């Protein structure tokens, strides 16, 4: 029996979809059977980030309205067999999906997959209600900005009212270390203290991520980047491992290392 995790944030543009894609990929890299569900009906993105857009034949609305079987709508990832995607519809709107329909799909997928990662749309309306309907636990994504933290707080309040197995956990995304150090960005500790939920990971703001997204290759596939390690760590924490938070210090260049060496 698998576990359904919803990735949500309230505010748009904080990296829900990227996070969903990368957590899903990282879990699949650890030999877990993973199914990604895009619930952002009308504004689907997850298929683009995963590079699977051209394979879509049926979508989640087709499944709910009985035009196809669930298995027919699932898209196998081109890189691993262990990863599937249930895409959102691009033509309908959020009212085409009901909470009951979502619950049914998720519980059916749970029979077959270890993890179901649900990518939630922005906002707190029907789309959000649908996305959290079938979830066992939630991960809230925020960036170190006031507006995003405020919305995360609102979302956590709404999730706490649902009967989930565990309280939601937090990812702080798009951290710019130098700005945080100078006090121009909210501090990680301040955010965690305000939101009062467990931190499950921090991800640095990384230009490589934009490149990867545009190529349709989740960054966690290549182990050379900091943000890729971040996502892999989050996946390990989801599996229950204890992994320390990675340092966000910038890697020093070769010359700087030599300078630092001689100063000692």
């Amino acid at each position: 029996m698998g576990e359904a995790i919803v990735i949500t944030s309230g505010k748009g543009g904080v990296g829900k979809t990227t996070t969903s894609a990368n957590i899903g990929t990282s879990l699949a890299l650890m030999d877990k059977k993973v199914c990604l569900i895009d619930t952002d009906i009308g504004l689907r993105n997850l298929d683009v980030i995963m590079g699977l857009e051209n394979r879509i034949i049926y979508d989640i609305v087709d499944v709910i309205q009985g035009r196809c079987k669930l298995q027919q709508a699932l898209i196998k990832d081109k890189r691993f067999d262990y990863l599937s995607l249930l895409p959102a519809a691009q033509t309908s709107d959020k009212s085409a999906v009901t909470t009951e329909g979502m619950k049914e799909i998720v519980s059916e997928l749970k029979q077959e997959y270890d993890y179901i990662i649900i990518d939630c749309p922005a906002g707190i309306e029907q789309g959000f209600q649908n996305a959290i309907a079938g979830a066992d636990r939630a991960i809230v994504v925020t960036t170190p900005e006031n507006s995003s933290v405020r919305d995360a707080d609102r979302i956590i309040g709404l999730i706490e009212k649902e009967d989930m197995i565990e309280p939601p956990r937090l990812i702080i995304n798009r951290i710019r270390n130098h700005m945080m150090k100078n006090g121009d960005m909210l501090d990680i500790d301040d955010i965690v203290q305000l939101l009062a939920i467990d931190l499950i990971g921090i991800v640095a703001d990384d230009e490589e991520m934009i490149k990867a997204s545009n190529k349709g290759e989740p960054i966690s596939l290549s182990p050379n980047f900091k943000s890729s390690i971040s996502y892999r760590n989050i996946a390990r924490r989801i599996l229950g491992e204890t992994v320390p938070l990675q340092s966000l210090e910038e890697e020093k260049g070769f010359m700087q290392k030599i300078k630092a060496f001689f100063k000692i």
Partner: protein
Amino acid sequence: MQETKPTITIKGTRDGLILFIDENSSFEEILQDLIKKLDASTPQKEEPVVSVKVKLGHRYLTEEQRHQLKEIIEDKNRFQIEAMESDVIPIKDAKTWLDESQLKVVNQIVRSGQVLETKGDLLLIGDVNPGGRVRASGNIYIMGNLLGIAHAGIEGDQEAFIAASYMKPAQLRIAEYISRAPDYEADGVYMECGIIDPDQNKIVIDSIKTLSKQRKVISAFERRMNNG
């Protein structure tokens, strides 16, 4: 019917008259006797207005009966009813009083978009995050960070106050007064309380230590008992 005890006793004091009404007589009887008694003394035109206190003993009067009594007393005479005191109140009223005056202890984080509203005093063990709101008809005590909006005395109690372990609120409201955070970035304060200062006619924030001087009776229940 033989009268053993007068239904109405009138006593004069320095502050005015006190009307004792016997609690065992029927209401009809009282009204009749009252009319008789009051008719016996027709007031002079230049007589000053006398304030009257009515003591009802263990008698409960409905709103209508109170009105009737008031009309009779104030009608022909230069009397003015200052208070009608009864030693009893209905259970329903007592229950609402109790409800409104009890300290409600709530253990939660009031997050953005959430509203926590209680009757009586509120003790919140937890934070009020930005965008969150707590409202109480009595005082508000917060063991945590107050970063959102707190409104004490929502039914108009200007004596109510707001105390918090750490205070950096977006707004403080007490009764119909509102004060907001300054526009410049300011640090919050620890162990302080917001209270209406009648001299400045606005909400001021002061150390909790000064509270004992300004508010002798802290609990909403006691205030209620004193004020009726």
